């Protein structure tokens, strides 16, 4: 039984002559504890797919099921609750609020859910310890490196024990050694039973996933296990 499914998902933007078909009849199943990487050239719809799967956006047609619950029919508030309690996110750029310390950033999902600061902060610090950032708990984002910021974002995602963690280009702004460290962290999470859906350009990093889903022009064109995949997209290739 997949924890996350997409059924004939289509997503259109705009109308009339400026209509863009971002996703077209996408079908995808993600099993519990599976780590999948979505690859494809820029504009192929991978970030749109991640947003639709992650209840950030709604499909124009088709269904997205999280634990068999159709996300498309939910109200904005209900989708907010799903994101708050069942989904974790890691992005390339905007990951942490610059006005809060690392621990306060990690504690955000709990505090949004109504937990008092005093109760949320110890749990946030424990999550930071999990990603090796206990010593950075009181530091502000501008006092941390890019890799540390991403690790803090992963700690925030892990804190709520989500059904799925969505990571959109989590290593895009990092050097190779930091990128490797982040991927290892995500791999460790997946090995611990955490479901992870990651969008990346880097084929080498994608190979650390269980499966690589390749997209082109809004469709999934390949979904082979990582060790069998021939996907080779990289930032250098996308410009072609």
């Amino acid at each position, binding site marked *: 039984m997949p924890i996350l499914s997409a059924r004939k998902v289509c997503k259109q933007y705009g109308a009339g002559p400026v209509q863009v078909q971002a996703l077209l009849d996408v079908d995808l199943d993600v099993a519990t504890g599976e780590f999948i990487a979505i690859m494809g050239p820029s504009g192929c719809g991978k970030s*749109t797919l991640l*947003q639709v799967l*992650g209840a*950030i*956006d709604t499909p124009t047609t088709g269904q997205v099921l999280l634990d068999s619950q159709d996300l498309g029919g939910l109200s*904005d*508030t209900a989708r*907010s*609750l*799903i*994101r*708050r*309690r069942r989904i974790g*996110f890691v*992005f390339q*750029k*905007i*990951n942490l*609020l*610059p*006005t*809060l310390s690392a621990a*306060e950033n990690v504690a*955000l*999902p709990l*505090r*949004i*859910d109504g937990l*008092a*600061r005093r109760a949320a902060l110890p749990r946030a610090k424990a999550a930071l310890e999990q990603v090796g950032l206990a010593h950075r708990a009181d530091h502000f*984002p*501008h006092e941390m490196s890019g890799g540390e910021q991403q690790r803090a974002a992963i700690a*925030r995602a892990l804190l709520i024990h989500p059904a799925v963690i969505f990571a959109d280009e989590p290593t895009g*702004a990092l050097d190779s050694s930091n990128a490797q460290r982040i991927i290892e962290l995500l791999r460790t999470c997946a090995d611990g039973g955490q479901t992870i859906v990651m969008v990346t350009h880097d084929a080498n990093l994608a190979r650390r996933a269980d499966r690589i889903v390749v997209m082109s022009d809004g469709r999934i064109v390949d979904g082979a296990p990582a060790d069998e995949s021939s996907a080779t997209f990289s930032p250098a290739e996308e410009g072609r």
Partner: protein
Amino acid sequence: MNLLDLIVHQWLQRPARTILSALSVAIAVAAVLGTAVAQNSVRSADRSLQALVEGPPAVDIISTEGGRIDASRRPNLDGIPGIAGSYSVTSRATLLRAHGQRMKSIVVGLPLQQSAAWETLPLVAGRYCREANEATLAADMANDLGVKLGDSLTLLTRRGPRTMTVVGLVESSALSALSPGASGALPLADIDRYFDLGGSVDRVRVLLDSADGRPRVESALRDRMPTTLQVQNTGQQSQLADTVLRSTELALRFSGALSLAMATFIILNTLRMNFAERRREIAVLRVLGATQRQLVALHLTEGAALGLMGSILGIPLGLLIGRGLGQAMQRLLDSHGDTGEISYRTIGWAMLAGPLVAGIAAIVPALQSRHVSPREAMTGAEPRRAEGLPLWATVGGSLIMVVAVGLMLLVMTTRLPVEMAIPAGLLLLLAFIVIIPAMIGPVARGAAKLLCPWWPLESDLATAQLLERRIRTGLTAGVLVVAVNAGLGMGNSIVNNVDDVHDWHRRWLSNDVSIHDPRVHDTAATSEDRIDFREQILARSGVAGVVELQFMAARAGAMPVDCIVRDFVPGDELPWSIIAGSAENCALRLQAGEAVIGGVLAHKLGLSVGDPLRLELGGRSLSLPVAAIANDYFAGGLIVYLDRGAAAKMIELGPPAVYFVRASANTSAESLLESLRPLANRNQLVIRSFAEARERLDRLIRGIVGALWGLLAVGFVVGCAAVANALTMNVLEQTGELGLLRILGMTRRQVRKVVLCESLLLGILGIVLGTAAGVVTALVIHFCNEPLLGHPVPFKFHFPLLTANTLGCLLVALVAGWSPGAKAARLDLATAIAYE
């Protein structure tokens, strides 16, 4: 590089931002106009109050020898600034006869060709005199005699009886202000002919543009006049014009300066926010070869252009606000007040104010742009930078504050003219606002604790955002601080001044009816034997008490003063409040032969309670101990009060000039008036009720207070716009972060609460810091009042004003936060997380 093209291109790229920036200037320009309207309304109501108490501002030129002035000796007044007009006045005692009734009276002669002279007498019915043998009568005298328009009136003159036609009825109080006790006005040429005056006149009345200009006009007149002439304050004219109104005028000028300061803060904040958002683009321009000078010119040009656009938008907005305020004033004043007309000059100033203030405000981002490095364009998206606590501003602000406090102390100790209180006050406020960023931390955190029980996360996030943008927050809160400061500090001062006049007037008019002898001010009038008149009044039904008064000219030290000799009864309320001395035994000390003097006289002669007062009165030279110093506006505080019984033992007293009659508990003023009217008529005395005067005063005070609320409302409307502007910028800047919060599970409602929290915190900052500034301003104005007025106005802190300001700030916060909050809640998540 064509800078104008670049500016227009940037505006078109971000139309919403451009409109918001121009609207900020528009709001500032509208505020300047709106404040001007509110000022006009307050000023108009104040002038009416002044006219009610003392008549229009004027001075008289009289002969030093006490005689009349020949037409040939009349000084040339051409070219003296501050003079609205002048006319000759002559008064004569006569006997009026109409419908078989006779009444002793004083008639005033005014030149037919001088419409300004006649217009000082408000018409109740009919018209002013246009030709010889026409007369206007005091409305209540006409009522007493049963005279109507068109009736004939006979005057007993030196050339025998002369018949005239009554063509107009005028307000009695205005005639009395022109000449005490006068009950009719005739053409000057008729008086001259009837009384064989040979072209000479009693005095020349010089009307002033405003009471403020009195000292300058007096000085200019003295320079031009021969020694046989002297300048004298008009009739019963008090120094209200020079003192209380001057104080209010100063407060209004201060509020005008504050509205400009608010405008500058709003525009400065907007341009700074524009700059912060555009920093990367500026870096790109630097890479492309733009010099620092070009960038400075770019910002200054943009500031001036936005200012011009704002002026064009703001003037209609200001006129709309002005019209609304004017109508509100009209309703408050029962259609008797000025509706807040705006002159073309004011509009011209407002038109200039936009580009000027925006140009000045643009200096800050212009200078900041010089420090943008081309390297910033080469790196990726810059992380947001927190605005640190500007140490230079805190130190500079503290130094300015020390200078401002020093200036204030010099004003308070009369070492500097009181007008210097305006720049000193502005400097003090500016210094306060400059150091606000240093005070924001503890206040914002304290305020967040108030919101924490309901909105813990939202208040934390809001506090963090406000503290990260300390300067923006400081400038935005600064606008609210200025609004609260104006509403609380100046409002408190205006209300205290008005209360003081009101209290004095209430004490003076504590009786219900006055009966007076119209000839008492005329030296030619004969004494009438009314020894038992007091008993006759007391014998009428509904009379609870009678106070007899007599007005006498005197000299205290070398100074001409008025002396009022009246009954003082221990236990009765005194006709003024006491500044120094004891109110309890004041009446007893007066009965023992001591004197009470006005605060201004005490100030000028340097007298305290117990000091001997050297008084020349009734041909005698007296030395009387000062029993108390009174807060009295009568004769501008240059006044001496004596008890009638005690004075009778020292000098020869004639019959009383005025009887104040108090009605008994179950008698109305109207029925008392009707009860006493036959007695007054039989003795040829004028009888009046105080009810109308009290009602008019109350209405005018309502008008002043109403206009004050209007002034306060303008401040808050501007504050609301400033907060909304800053919050919109915050939301724009936080787009990515708000998007992240939504992705992490925040509902739209929670996001709206975050913005509302920011708004409420700004409101609370405005309340706390504005109240502190307002209390200081109120105290500073209070202490400046003493050198200004010659006596202190009792200080009272008006909590309703504090409540109104607090509620105003909270309302502003709620209203201002609504739209940005809704905008934040509507953010498209996919777009928001991609926002840079």
